[in-house]
């Protein structure tokens, strides 16, 4: 398969996702109309009360005096030129707010994906190799415990132990706001702040991947092609690394792609415990404030992210398994 074919494939896939994203946007827009109360009420509530003139003024500014379908039409028309609207609560354009949160989100997700996949796959692999020994049981029990423990609790315990008791890590935030490091020192500082949130968020997914990898490895090892390979006299180590491992990885990669969407959701808790400035927290706040412009923007961005990640997953398939053809 040449690079041109891959390029054409990517373009076609992206075009196919347009109706999906459009559907997501329209559905979300209509769903949000069902929530009781509106932004004007919340703003007035936050202010501790406001005269009626003020609230009417707000509703007019937000365009809420227009019919829903007209509002939807305006929204879609603006979306075409990537104008996601204005967040009246935060007094800033939605796109700016989203972009500011995007890279902390990607940083946390990226490091989580990396840690949970590598550790999870490693643990699953070892458990499969040591199947039905005490080491396998140990790994499996650990995975179950990680899976069952609430994220916020893990986060708080990590803070209590490693931040307050030992003082190894900062309790929260993304960088030191007293020092305001620059250059390389800032990179180190952010990495330092990233450790605890990444570990916390990884725990859950790590368990998932470990269990899946173990099962997948055991299944692959019983298949005919492994017997054939053994009959050919290929060393056990080569069979595992070159054949079984690569095939066993496929379901894990699929899972990771699907989990990416939920990673956004799961990060709400971790972001709030560690005061990490990500998209999850922004979504949570804007929902309770009925800041629908901002919320729709977040949904739109998440939909785009999920679509892109799944495209990447499909391409990774090809690299892992030459039998899979794209197109």
């Amino acid at each position, binding site marked *: 398969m040449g690079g041109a074919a891959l390029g054409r494939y990517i373009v076609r896939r992206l075009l196919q996702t347009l109706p999906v994203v459009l559907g997501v946007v329209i559905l979300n827009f209509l769903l949000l109309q069902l929530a009781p109360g509106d932004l004007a*009420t919340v703003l007035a509530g936050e202010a501790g009360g406001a*005269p009626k003139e003020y609230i009417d003024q707000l509703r007019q500014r937000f365009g809420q005096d227009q019919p829903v379908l007209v509002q939807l039409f305006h929204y879609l028309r603006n979306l075409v030129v990537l104008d996601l609207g204005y967040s009246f609560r*935060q*007094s800033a354009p939605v796109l700016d707010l989203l972009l500011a949160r995007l890279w902390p989100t990607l940083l946390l997700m990226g490091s989580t994906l990396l840690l949970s996949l590598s550790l999870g796959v490693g643990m699953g692999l070892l458990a499969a190799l040591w199947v039905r020994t005490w080491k396998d049981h140990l790994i499996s029990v650990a995975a179950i415990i990680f899976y069952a423990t609430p994220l916020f609790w893990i986060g*708080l315990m990590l*803070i209590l132990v490693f931040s307050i008791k030992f003082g190894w890590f900062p309790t929260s*935030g993304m960088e030191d706001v007293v020092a305001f490091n620059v250059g390389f020192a800032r990179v180190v500082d952010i990495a330092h702040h990233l450790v605890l949130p990444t570990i916390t968020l990884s725990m859950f997914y790590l368990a998932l991947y470990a269990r899946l990898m173990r099962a997948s490895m055991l299944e692959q090892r019983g298949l005919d092609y492994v017997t054939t390979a053994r009959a050919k006299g290929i060393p056990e180590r080569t069979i595992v690394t070159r054949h079984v491992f690569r095939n066993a990885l496929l379901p894990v990669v699929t899972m990771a792609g699907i989990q990416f969407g939920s990673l956004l959701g799961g990060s709400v808790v971790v*972001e709030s415990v560690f005061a990490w*400035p990500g998209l999850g927290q922004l979504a949570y706040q804007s929902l309770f*404030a009925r800041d629908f412009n901002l919320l729709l923007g977040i949904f739109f961005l998440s939909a785009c992210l999920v679509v892109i990640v799944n495209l990447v997953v499909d391409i990774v398939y090809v690299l892992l398994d030459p039998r899979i053809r794209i197109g």
Partner: protein
Amino acid sequence: MRALTKSLILMAAAITMACGPAHAQKSGGTLVQITQPEPPNLAPYISTSGPIGQVTAKVFDGLLEYDFDLKPKLGLAESFTVSPDGKTVTFKLRRGVTFHDGKPFTSADVQFTIMDVLKTNHPRGIATFKEVTAVETPDETTAIFKLANPAPYMMAALSGYESPILPKHVYGVGDIKTHPNANAPVGTGPFKFVEWRRGEFVRLDRNTTYWRQGRPFLDRIVVRFIADASTRTAALEKGEAHIAGFGAVPYNDVRKLSALPSVEVTTKGYEMISPLVEMVINTKKAPFDNVKVRQAINYALDRKFVIDNVWFGFGKAAVGPISSNFEPSGLFGAGVDFTVPDRIERANKLLDEAGFPRKADGTRFEMVHDITPYGEEWQRFGEAVQQALAAVGIKATLRYEDVAKWLKRIYTDYDYDMSSNFLYNLADPVLGVHRGFHSDRIKKGTVFVNGSQWSSPETDALMDKATTEADAAKRGALYRELVTKVTEASPVIYVHELKFPTIINKQYKNLIDSPLGIYGNYANAYRE
């Protein structure tokens, strides 16, 4: 002789206090404040959402400042005079004050701020400056407020938190409602806005050309936003953050923190805010249209139990709609005492008289009690109310919804029986108290006004008189009569004056030096 010595010592003490312990105050240091939740914007002239002021009061100055007795002190105004008829207020402004962008501050900025911004756009300013018909500027350092009627309450609302003075050359350009500087404030205050990273922090640096010589002492203030309550406690415990107030730390953690040698806890600095915990009753709905039922509920509530067990002792039983913080200014009054020892018998008797005898199962009637959706302690409060009502035979079901839905239910749909509630008295009863039960504040769709829909011509008249009465003693007398009448009718049950704990790292001094507390400007704060 002894008297002379004593007065000399007092004088010496007064002088020392006035000058301050100058030798101990060092320049430098970064103060990290925790504000919860993150402010939606930094535009205090258009939104009074609580967290905004905690940041912007350091950036903007007001014409006046206030002492702990709520008496005015001078801010951007060098002096002020109120005419005998109360309809003309003349402010002489300080010379040589500049905004953070270097441009000078003049009377034109005052005129612009009051007339074009606060009077028309500020949620509370619309009421505060209702009587102001014009701000005249005969010269650059004089601003004369012309009023249609006397407005004594206005003089309590001129702090940098409540009525920030804006530069006309910045905010006068473009639409004030969607102004680009809404998130990058420019003022004359002791700290300059530098950066706001959403979800993380706001950074304010020392204004080196601040008009108060040698102030501020701190180099920098960083206001951090941490969504999780336990993490906020951890950051304070570890010394990563140095001050937090307004319930940012859960009450049960306050006790733990106060045991640390590095931390002090104070309940000072809320005198101009005066938060009250209340229960608002829908007086248009049977059986709550019956005054005896409302009084019975008022008697049934055990205020001491609620304060001690739900709010961990951070409160003081309320005796009416006006907080005891108004005692020094003479506006406080106590109403009917609902904490008498035989309150349960009285409640039972009132309910019998109202025509709700106990049925075979011991209950009289059922109701739904809505809970203010502001967090854990409000749910515990709801449970305490439920228990108290059960003791007099009222079976209450609890309902907890999110803020938007709750506000709509109480203030737009009036679809409720009784709800807990949380209101501020603010700087003056006209601003914070009247809204709770004046007939002109029964406004469908407007939040935190008269949700009980109760009013009476007598109480309306008392409030109208107190609004324009310039003499403090006469105002006080009007308010005492008002408080008695309102507590008798019990459209709202005043539970307690909430004493918010502020957690402060002991390295930092003079942070809370005004009745506005965290809404102060920290110009005098320093690090040891």
